[in-house]
């Protein structure tokens, strides 16, 4: 079951674009209804590209700009960039402290990220960020973890729900019928990324229209609605 619209939501992406393409419809809907959505991009997004020779720092800068534009389209209240190394997401330090600090500071009722149990997800960052989120939630809610956070005034905080996108076994559906076009606008803002094996920035108008239609169809149900699917993990 989908959680009720929270006052505050924290969406964790390994890279720019991740959250927008997986949950951008629901987050646009919640944002429009008054939820304060914070997007945290944990890595510097500097590695995943099919283009050879592009300096990594340039990619980081470009992708942060794309993400800010997409966040504006979707209505997120805030975007934070942790700039940890792309391709190395795991639950070790400093990853866990970074996410625990975010959770204690933002105090979200719902945290969103990738389902770590989705089979045959080859990108390790997408597998690992789900377990990192779970581990960091434990550290955020229990005062004995990272005592320096408590000393800095960050009280323990327990979210109600970890809402997993790209789920192995979905059990929640969000109706995004009125938000899917806005979501696709946001996704296609990520011009330095590949979507469905196509580098967005290299597509002409026909290519963009075709990609948009492919993505649109993935959201459609038999009864004319558009949905995003999740696994709700109640805490």
């Amino acid at each position: 079951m989908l959680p009720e619209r929270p006052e505050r939501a924290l969406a964790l992406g390994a890279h720019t674009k991740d959250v927008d393409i997986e949950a951008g419809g629901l987050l646009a809907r919640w944002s429009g209804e008054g939820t304060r959505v914070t997007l945290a991009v944990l890595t510097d997004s500097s590695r995943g590209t099919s283009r050879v020779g592009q300096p990594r720092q340039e990619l980081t800068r470009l992708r942060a700009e794309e993400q800010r534009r997409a966040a504006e389209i979707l209505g997120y209240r805030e975007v934070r960039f942790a700039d940890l190394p792309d391709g190395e997401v795991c639950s070790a330090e400093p990853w866990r402290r970074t996410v625990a600090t975010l959770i204690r500071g933002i105090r979200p009722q719902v945290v969103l990220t990738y389902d770590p149990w989705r089979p045959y997800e080859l990108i390790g960052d997408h597998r690992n960020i789900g377990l990192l989120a779970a581990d960091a939630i434990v550290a955020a809610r229990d005062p004995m973890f990272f005592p320096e956070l408590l000393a800095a005034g960050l009280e323990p905080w327990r979210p109600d729900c970890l809402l997993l996108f790209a789920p192995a076994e979905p059990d929640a559906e969000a109706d995004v019928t009125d938000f899917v076009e806005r979501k696709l606008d946001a996704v296609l803002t990520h011009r330095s990324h590949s979507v469905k094996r196509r580098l967005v920035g290299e597509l002409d108008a026909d290519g963009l229209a075709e990609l948009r239609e492919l993505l649109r169809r993935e959201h459609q149900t038999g009864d004319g609605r558009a949905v995003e699917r999740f696994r709700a993990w109640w805490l």
Partner: protein
Amino acid sequence: MRAPDERLRVLGVGAHPDDLEFRVGGALAAYAAEGAEVTMMLITDGGRGSWDVVRPAELAGRRLAEAEAAGRALGAERVFCLHHRDGSVVDAPALRQELCAWLRALRPNVVLTHDPWRRYNVHPDHRATGWACCDAMVAARNANYFPEQLERLAPWRPRELLLFMPLEVNHVVDISSHLEAKVAAVLRHESQLAGWAARAEPPGGDPADSVRRRVRQQAAAAAEGRSFSYGEAVHRVTLRGE
């Protein structure tokens, strides 16, 4: 793209001597029979693979010789070992880096390894090998990973990944013409026969016969409902590579 006269290159990545033979020996033999250049890479030397307490270095030497003999039975051109400690393979950045370098050096079109998504997989080496190999596939194709390797090696993207003992079977390799080669390769691992004998059916029976029967039964079960008699079940991931 491969040049018309260039041979297909196939790389099997197994945690221990005998893992590849048991799980994809038939597929490797089929590739070799079709003219592919088959390489078998072992992460560990199998030095702890015994029910008796033995000296690991001695056992390892014996097992690597067995692996080479098994490779010959399958038609593989190369069998080599990275000499990680048996039982202690860790899915860490160092192993990913090492496997990334081998992928870039050997430039395989097809890679076969343990499916790390399989649940209730008790052996840590099998899980760690599968994860490290999948992560290395993602790294090898991208110049932003381990750029120090690019002084001598180029990025490389295989076209296919075959995961054995899979969580979800989506492909069965026809090994009907290669079952005997597979059995022969498995039986080259003579140091393991005593351990297999303990599980022989009937108890006290000839362990080699028991192994032969087991391999045949598994291959027949994998091919059930197919148009061929013997198979090996895998999860096939198609990549955009060469």
